């Protein structure tokens, strides 16, 4: 049990890290909203969405990889902490993915699809991410249906591994081969200009790092909360609450 739920001590360094993340992202927000941007037709100021929409993708991938890693560790060692970490990572990943999807829809609706009334475009990467999010969302449905902790942990770990395996194909390989709004695919050089424009590049890198760090912070908070829950449950199981006084 001790090793089962062992967590590192999240002390002063962790709190300091939180402060650094807070300051870092505040600076990113200021630079992102007030800083100079490339002068792009159609996009104009919405080019700034680059700093917020794309980092969500990075958090999606990082969370899924962490989730799969801990899923693998759980299957290898059977320690409950890996199941906790896998689920927390998966939650952060799926949430970021949903945010990436919604922000992408909003961004394209008022730029490339302005005047068409189209909210949901035939944009390949967007549709592939929607499919991937359905697959990721099924992870939580699976967990909800299984009552026995060890069975739940084992099956969801296996599922997480498969769900992460589909991710590179759905969200990266397939869309690259189709006509797409996203950079790197056939059809949109304007975006690559924005990506490499020097005045935007460094803010973008800082935003990516900042949001990854924020994702990690949220992930560790979920892990700590869940482990605390489990420890309370274990303590109550060992020493059941006294019966109500009858007089």
């Amino acid at each position, binding site marked *: 049990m001790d090793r089962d739920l062992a967590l590192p001590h*999240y002390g002063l360094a962790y709190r300091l890290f*939180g402060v650094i993340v*807070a300051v870092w992202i*505040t600076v990113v927000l200021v630079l992102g909203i*007030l800083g100079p941007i490339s002068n792009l037709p159609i996009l104009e100021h919405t080019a700034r969405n680059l700093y917020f929409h794309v980092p969500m993708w990075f958090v999606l991938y990082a969370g899924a990889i962490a989730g799969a890693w801990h899923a693998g560790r759980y299957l290898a060692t059977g320690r409950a902490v890996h199941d906790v970490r896998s689920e927390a990572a998966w939650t952060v990943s799926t949430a970021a993915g949903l945010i990436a999807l919604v922000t992408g829809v909003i961004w394209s609706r008022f730029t490339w699809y302005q005047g068409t009334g189209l909210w949901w475009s035939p944009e390949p990467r967007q549709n592939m991410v929607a499919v991937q999010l359905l697959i990721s969302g099924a992870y939580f449905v699976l967990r909800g249906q299984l009552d026995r902790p060890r069975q739940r942990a084992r099956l969801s770990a296996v599922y997480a591994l498969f769900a992460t395996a589909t991710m590179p194909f759905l969200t990266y390989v397939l869309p690259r081969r189709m006509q797409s709004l996203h950079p790197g695919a056939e059809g949109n050089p304007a975006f690559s200009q924005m990506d490499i424009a020097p005045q935007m590049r460094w803010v973008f890198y800082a935003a990516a790092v900042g949001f990854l760090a924020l994702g990690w912070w949220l992930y560790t*908070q979920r892990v700590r909360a869940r482990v*605390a829950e489990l*420890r309370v449950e274990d*303590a109550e199981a060992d020493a059941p609450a006294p019966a109500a006084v009858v007089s």
Partner: protein
Amino acid sequence: MLQPADTTVALFDTTAAQAVTVQRAEGIERPMLAEDKLPVVLAVVLVVWFGVLFLLFRTDRRLARLERRLDADEPR
């Protein structure tokens, strides 16, 4: 570029109607209304962000307190 807005607020609030067209920017309005009014966007975003930060730090503190109690009752 940015389209001119429909200033329908002018219909029911004469003060606002005058402000948009007549008065020159003074004091805090001068920086806020420059740069396509992006500083206003930043102000809104920062308010949201500081709210989120407040919740994050509060959760941290409560978790730490909970962990300290658990460690005291049942040392790992």
